[in-house]
Each structure stands twice: as structure tokens, then as C-alpha cells.
């Protein structure tokens, strides 16, 4: 079980800010494929992962990063702070 968080337009497109996901995905990319297979709104949100960023346990990571030991995955667009 892993917590998956969504922010900004990713949250809006998927329609929820957070969910618990039962998964055997070894990497972020595998998790994304599982989510895309679920429903059209996931497929739409993850259509172009180059427009997305991912954080694992609140640290920025790459889409080929391993999920081993990870408790929280967050997907969001590039940040626009400052």
C-alpha cells in the first residue's frame, strides 16, 4: 500500500487529492502505467509525463526511480513558486 498524492491540475483532472493504492509496481513509471490503465481521467492526467514532476517521500525524483520502501508518491506539474 502506498499513498499517492495529486496537486494542481493533476489533482483537478483526476478528481481527488490523495488515495491509497495497492500496487506491486517496482518503479514510478510502472505505477503510472497501472494508474493510466484504470480510467480515462488517469489516462488524461498522465498522458504526457514530461509535463509532470514526481516526489517520493517528499523529495523530487525521476520517473524511473524505484518505489522500494517508498510510502508517499506525489504527482504534480512543474512548480511555480516565488
Amino acid at each position, binding site marked *: 500500500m502506498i499513498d499517492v498524492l495529486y*496537486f494542481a491540475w493533476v489533482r483537478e483532472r483526476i478528481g481527488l487529492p490523495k488515495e491509497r493504492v495497492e500496487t506491486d509496481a517496482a518503479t514510478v513509471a510502472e505505477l503510472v502505467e497501472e494508474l493510466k490503465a484504470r480510467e480515462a481521467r488517469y489516462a488524461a492526467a498522465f498522458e504526457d509525463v514530461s509535463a509532470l514532476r514526481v516526489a517520493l517521500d517528499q523529495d523530487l525524483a525521476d520517473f524511473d526511480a524505484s518505489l522500494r520502501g517508498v510510502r508517499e508518491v506525489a504527482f504534480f506539474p512543474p512548480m511555480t513558486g516565488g
Partner: protein
Amino acid sequence: MEIRLQQAPFLPGALLDAFTARLGGAGAVVSFTGIVRDEAGTLGAMEIEHYPGMTERALEQIGREAMARWTLADLLIVHRHGRLAPGEPIMMVATASSHRAAAFESAEFLMDYLKSRAPFWKKEIGADGAAWVAAKDADEDALGRWSSEP
């Protein structure tokens, strides 16, 4: 080092005077304030979403990195989230050093990292609807200048 993440409005100058008052001998203080723009006069509000937990970590990391790279007497980061009105300050940074180059460079460094590495997302709410602010390539590119030691 002081880091504030808050919904409440703030007065940058009041924070700057408090920051300056508690400095010891530092001779140079630089501040940057970001303000909600409304050039077209059509913006109703700006909504700033953030990632509670990661935001605090990111601000701390960025602040500590600046303290490690430059000889600073002190630094301050303030960033708001929630709903902001046009003209309101969004965020500010202040840096203090004996040398003006260190104060300027570290403030620019903080800004470049806050823009592209702190988990905030801005949404502009106008009369015709709302739109997420797109990240600028120039902001991502600006990080490149800090990839080597100063």
C-alpha cells in the same frame, strides 16, 4: 535563519526592519518581494496551492544551501499560500552579509530555487474563469547558473 509558510498577509518592510534590527555587524542587506500582478486589471485573485510537509522541507533545504554557499549573517524566507488579492505580497526573501555581492547572489539563488524547486502552484482566478500559471523555461534555466560553486 527564519522560514515562514503562512496564509496571512504580511508587510515586507516591517519584516525587513525586524530582520535588520537583529543583525550584528552585517553591512549589506538585500530583500526581494514578489507581488501578485494584475497588469490587465482582470485578475480577481491568485490561489496558491502547496504540498504540506514537502514545502517546509524544501524551504529549509534551500535556505540551508544558501547559508552553506555564502557567508551570510542571516536569511529570511516568507511564502504565502491560499487566496491572495492583486497587489498583495506573495513572498519575500532577505539576506544579510558583510559583502554586498554575497547578499545579492544568495537572494537571487533563493529566488531561482523557490521558483522551480519549492512545491507551490499558482492559479489565476479571473472574471472568465481560472487558469494554472505555467512554469517558465527561463525559470528552470536560471537554476543552471548555480550548478557550480560560487
